[in-house]
């Protein structure tokens, strides 16, 4: 089986580093090959890392409330860069304050994200989702 590689990072000017470290650890432990970009990662950096490393998923964190602005256009840029169909996940505290999650999820899905996770999602949930999605991709290939 080929390595299941993903790019991980905290998008925008966001410096919340703790969750990123935990996710890096948890995903690696779960057998994924993680290209962790850390905090303050631009859309371009996510994309360039995914191209070079041939990653099949980009997992975006946003914690400081500006996630919606930061994530806009990421899917389109991925398409442009030849990363058609790459999995896009987003989670953390992706919007300002407490908003109904269904609406938030809808908005991010409309932006092209495959999976959107609400605040406090434990890594296990994400890992399960990633495994399923990677299996689907592998079945397609």
């Amino acid at each position, binding site marked *: 089986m080929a*390595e299941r*590689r993903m*790019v991980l990072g905290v998008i925008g*000017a*966001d*410096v919340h580093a703790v969750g990123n470290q935990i996710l890096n650890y948890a995903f690696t432990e779960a057998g994924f*090959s993680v*290209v962790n*970009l850390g*905090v*303050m990662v631009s859309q371009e*950096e996510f994309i*360039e*890392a995914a*191209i*070079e*490393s*041939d*990653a099949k998923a980009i997992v975006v964190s946003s914690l*400081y*409330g*500006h996630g919606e602005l930061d994530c806009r256009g990421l899917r389109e840029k991925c398409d442009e860069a030849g990363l058609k169909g790459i999995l896009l996940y987003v989670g953390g505290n992706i919007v300002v304050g407490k908003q109904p999650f269904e609406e938030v999820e809808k908005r991010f899905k409309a932006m092209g994200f495959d999976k959107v996770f609400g605040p406090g999602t434990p890594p296990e949930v994400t890992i399960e989702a990633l495994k399923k999605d990677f299996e689907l991709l592998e079945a397609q290939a």
Partner: protein
Amino acid sequence: MKPVLLVDFGSTYTKATAVEAESGKLMGTAQSYTTVEQDISLGLEKALAELKGQTGALEYEKRYACSSAAGGLRMIASGLVPSLTSEAAKRAALGAGAKVIRTYAYELTEDDTAEIAALAPDILLLCGGTDGGNSACALHNAEAIASIDRDFPVVVACNRACARKCAEILTAAGREAIVTENVMPQFNSLNIEPCQKVIREVFLRRIIQAKGLSRMHELISGILMPTPAAVLQALTVLSEDLGELCAVDLGGATTDIYSITEGLPTKAGTVLRGLPEPYAKRTVEGDIGMRYSANGVLEAVGLKRLCSNADITEEQMTAWLARIQEDKGILPREPWEQQADFALAATAIEVGLARHAGEIEPVYTPMGLAYQQTGKDLTRVKQILLTGGALIHTGKAAELAQKAMATTFYPSSLMPRQAQAVVDRHYILSAMGLLSQYDRTLAKTMMIKELL
């Protein structure tokens, strides 16, 4: 007594340096025009005759040489993403002392392959993909390169998962392909030494031959490396004692900048971004120089700023540039000409340093101001070495460096600001790089004695 002869076949001058290896004494230096068109040994013989005038007849224990004659080591670098493997490939080639004539990113097109055929590089460096990462690009490019009807060796330093396959594609087409470690094995980690070692081997084995430099065998034990690699080597050895340093080699056509330092952030609250920097780094500004590229200096900063670096009017500067255009060997005589040349040199150094060094930019986060650094922070570098005929012969090298570092035009640049200028008066850096291959400590002590 153990005399050692060190020769640098430069693009213009062949320089010969005699060193006494027991006492570490510089016995003499001499130079003569490089004669590639006829027979390169003619120039060397002339330089040696002049050297003999200084030292008397000597039985040399060892003879080493480096070369940037016959166009130097002309390389093409290709990678995947411009800021990643493509940049890594370029840095690897520059650090190996090559002249990088073109850098490609992504899949090579038919136009690209036609261009490569026309450029006829000495070596092509094929990169792309992290280990286990993208292999489509390197494989595609191997096919594209294989289709080029030109015989040049290809150094394959791409994703290791497809490196062998790339080499097979190339050798099947009759091309020599040498596989080495990936220049970027993991995302954002630079691994350029193995690739540089291979480049040097190919240089010794093939390029020297092809350029007719191998006829020198009776005169010297061998050409060890391209000249810029020798300079980088000398600086690396010197920095073991002096600490972090930078160097500028200002030429007529190009300007080489070197830095030997990690270049980590010196300002608190700074996040480092982008591809890691090689500890010993070389960049070349192909459009910045004192004669062939004098107009490049003008284009880089504009007339007004160019004049601001000396006491000179815009009319005078324009007149001087026109004269240079007509006669590339021109030397300034009148005071105003000297001022004009001073402005040109100071600006060339300034632009070279600013392009070589990293940048810092403020990021306004919701919690206030933070900083992002890309490239090396050289602001605290203590020494700046100045070499190259154009600088050494002005007699004002130190002044020029001070002027360049005092510039206010690059507020976000992390270029050196308060370094002490050290002038390579006897033009010994490349020779010392060669000598260090023979005796590292000796080269170090000699440089410290000669330069400081």
